[in-house]
């Protein structure tokens, strides 16, 4: 059974499920529940009283940290630390390696990164673009029960669901190109991920060009400049919209070039 306790310094009921099934039950329909994965995003928000949850679900002991490979199909448990992905083939591995530093990556989780809300000062959720590029699907729980859906469909609702796992087929070729970060803790100002399957079909996606990761459908035919039709970048602390619009085609071109390489 889940351990239930109440923090003396805050009126927060803390639930600590010890299995996936318990996590699904205590999450329920997700209303008024704060999910704590690794804690790297929500702890500062709690410290600065930006969050005052009535209920919190701590997932550390819920058995959701695992990686499974079945032929070319990869499935990653929600609580898997990002550091576990850094040696994956592109675009997942290079994208994961570009996140924060080894201490943060060892604590931050895949689902936490995928579900990161839109930051006040910068885009968050670096992995969204990489997983969009490989055509990932998300298995999640919440209102209506358990569902598995493409990441594109999941992202707009990511604040209302409990991610259980994410799956994708390893591409024949993958590529990642991102702007260098001035400090390890800056979020990626702009990054592009790409994947080519065995049939030669290309998928492209960007992180940092909108409120969450998004496909670059117009550029998937090979015209890098067409990527600008798919995005609406904004100014933030890391870069201006103007700069992002100038750089995006450059990154797309690099990824497209890399995708032409041998499988």
């Amino acid at each position, binding site marked *: 059974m889940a351990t239930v*306790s109440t923090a003396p310094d805050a009126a927060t009921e*803390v639930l600590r499920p010890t299995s996936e099934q318990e996590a699904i039950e205590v999450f329920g329909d997700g209303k008024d529940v704060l999910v*704590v994965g690794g804690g790297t995003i929500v702890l500062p928000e709690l410290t600065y009283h930006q969050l005052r949850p009535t209920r919190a679900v701590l997932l550390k002991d819920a058995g959701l940290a695992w990686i499974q490979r079945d032929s070319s199909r990869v499935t990653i448990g929600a609580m898997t630390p990002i550091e576990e992905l850094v040696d994956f083939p592109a675009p997942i591995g290079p994208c994961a390696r570009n996140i*924060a530093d*080894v201490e943060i990556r*060892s604590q931050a989780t895949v689902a936490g990164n995928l579900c990161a809300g839109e930051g006040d000062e910068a885009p968050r959720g670096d992995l969204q673009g990489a997983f969009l590029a490989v055509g990932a699907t998300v298995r999640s729980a919440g209102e209506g029960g358990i569902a598995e859906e493409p990441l594109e469909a999941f992202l707009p609702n990511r604040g209302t669901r409990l991610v259980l796992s994410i799956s994708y087929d390893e591409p024949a070729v993958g590529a990642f190109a991102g702007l260098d970060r001035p*400090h390890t803790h800056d979020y990626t100002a702009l990054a592009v991920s790409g994947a080519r399957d065995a049939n030669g079909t290309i998928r492209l996606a960007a992180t940092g060009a909108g409120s969450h990761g998004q496909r670059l459908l117009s550029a998937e035919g090979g015209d890098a400049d067409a990527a600008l039709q798919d995005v609406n970048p904004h100014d933030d602390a890391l870069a201006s919209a103007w700069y992002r619009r100038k750089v995006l085609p450059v990154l797309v071109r690099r990824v497209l070039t890399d995708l032409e390489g041998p499988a």
Partner: protein
Amino acid sequence: MRLTVNGVTHEIESGPLTPLLDVLREELGVTGTKAGCHQGGCGACTVLVDGEPKRSCLLPAAYAEDAEITTAEGIGTREGLAPIQQAFIHHYAAQCGFCTSGMMLAAQAYIDRGGSDDPEAIQEALGGHVCRCTGYSKIIDAVAAVARGDSFDLTTTAVGKYTTMATGGEA
């Protein structure tokens, strides 16, 4: 909830969502762990949890239950400094000292993992730690010295690549 800090087990009154940093400093008075940015950006609060470096400001106290927590106070004694502490003195790797405990604990974890004296590998391991005095070269020298197994003469400061002419070293 119980936490074991530097080998001593404490009954904790703070709630499970309280950052470990606040439990250490405010409830237990273990102030060698420094509170810098409170949002994981500086590394000053890093402690070892079962030997792994963790930002204590980002870690719910409940996540450290049943683990061995090691802070700066736990890696050596006044009479018997740990090699990494000796190295920081000998290589003059601490200036204001605010980042030092987090730096040393991250370095200790790197050394314990069998890390080499390769400066790039050390930079990768300490990449999340900010030194506002910008003493990075000396810090990397100190960690590399421990990785090599150097011994340290604490009565003098090492002459190194970045020592100034005024102190008699190389330019």
